[in-house]
């Protein structure tokens, strides 16, 4: 159950001995591959890690609506517009599933949104890049959603059950996002003009490296990875997922007829994987730190949407209060 409202029982004082026993039991359940539910005992650090990760994920879905939403009014055909509307609506839905999952851990929606709006919480740095042409929408579907799926499928087996359940739903819907993107690009590459093909290649050139950064820092520099693996919150390492993505995408690029902008990208028979060039981690940290091309614009748009909608939220509550008061008087 997703409710946090029931979690109101007063916390009993426990001795260190009891805490150790609870910790031991928790570890044993994790080791046995059991799921942890909202009201089960869990270490405070596990709870905090999940709130951070799930809320970051939710924020990414919500902020992720902006770069693509930019193109809804400019989509080239009614079909593409309907598809894009459905996709952006999905992203909003995914954000809501994830906020609900985070709230089961004892935080409130307002607290989560406040952390986003004040810049305390992060969201995926990929959404701080601009969408300059229609091809960017297709490339976001193919590469950005493709990378997201790679990241998200293992989370369906996450030890925290409300998060795992949300991810099952999200992954089921996400596949459409990747396929519609590839399809939009494929149409331009096979039936489009020279200018359209150049537009697709330009979009691929700009999104390829940021997409690889979506898997997070290299394993050696990933601060939370080891503990998250131990807890079954994370199942596959950043570098392994990145490699998997490169291998899958290299083949898709050939089918599409675009060149991935990496001279070092080539099949390594010995490893059974593609080798690829060095990622500019300085750029990654710069964008994560708030200094990407669109960080300020994205956050400002998001905060404005929240502030401008305040009167609607308040009016809806006032209306319900009035109705309930009238009903009680009757």
């Amino acid at each position, binding site marked *: 159950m997703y409710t946090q409202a029931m979690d109101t029982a007063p916390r009993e004082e426990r001795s260190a001995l009891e805490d150790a026993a609870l910790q031991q039991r928790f570890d044993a359940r994790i080791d046995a591959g059991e799921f942890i539910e909202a009201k089960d005992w869990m270490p405070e650090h596990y709870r905090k890690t999940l709130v951070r990760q799930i809320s970051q994920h939710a924020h990414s879905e919500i902020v992720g609506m902006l770069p693509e939403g930019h193109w809804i009014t400019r989509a080239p055909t009614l079909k593409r517009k309907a598809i894009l509307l459905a996709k952006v609506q999905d992203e909003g839905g995914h954000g809501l599933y994830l906020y609900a999952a985070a709230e089961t851990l004892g935080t409130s929606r307002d607290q989560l949104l406040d952390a986003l709006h004040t810049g305390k919480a992060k969201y995926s740095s990929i959404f701080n890049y601009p969408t300059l042409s229609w091809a960017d929408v297709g490339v976001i579907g193919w590469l950005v959603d493709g990378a997201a799926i790679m990241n998200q499928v293992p989370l369906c087996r996450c030890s925290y059950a409300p998060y795992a359940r949300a991810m099952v739903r999200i992954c089921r819907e996400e596949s459409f996002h990747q396929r519609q993107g590839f399809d939009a690009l494929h149409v331009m590459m096979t039936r489009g003009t020279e200018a359209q093909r150049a537009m697709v290649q330009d979009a691929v050139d700009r999104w390829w490296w940021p997409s690889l950064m979506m898997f997070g820092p290299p394993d050696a520099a990933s601060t939370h990875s080891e503990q998250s693996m131990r807890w079954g919150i994370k199942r596959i390492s950043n570098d392994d997922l990145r490699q998997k993505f490169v291998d899958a995408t290299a083949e898709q690029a050939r089918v599409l007829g675009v060149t991935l902008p990496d001279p070092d990208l080539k099949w390594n028979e010995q490893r059974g994987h593609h080798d690829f060039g060095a990622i500019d981690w300085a750029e990654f940290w710069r964008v994560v730190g708030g200094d990407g091309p669109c960080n300020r614009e994205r956050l400002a748009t998001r905060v404005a949407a929240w502030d401008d909608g305040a009167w609607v939220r308040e009016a*809806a509550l006032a209306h319900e209060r009035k109705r309930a008061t009238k*009903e009680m008087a009757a």
Partner: protein
Amino acid sequence: MSGNPDAAAAGGEWPLWEVFVRSKAGLDHKHCGSLHAPDAKAAVQLAREVYTRRQEGTSIWVVRSDQIVASDPGDKDMYFDPMADKVYRHPTFYELPDAVNHM
């Protein structure tokens, strides 16, 4: 649907609702998630947008999360384990002659 003006007045946040969806006629409603909504009518409408964008349902129930009474996970063993030793409640407990064993 009974309102709760006190809870609604308590803060600026819309209350939390649990959502149950019947995926098709003949099946039962199943819990599928939760959402915030100002009132019952809005909760049903938002549930449609959030949880049934791909024909996942033919009927929706919503209920205020603070109205749900649940068993305590701490009592799980006491509540549910005694059933483990009542194997005679299951048809497989009974070994019958082969000729009639598929009854």
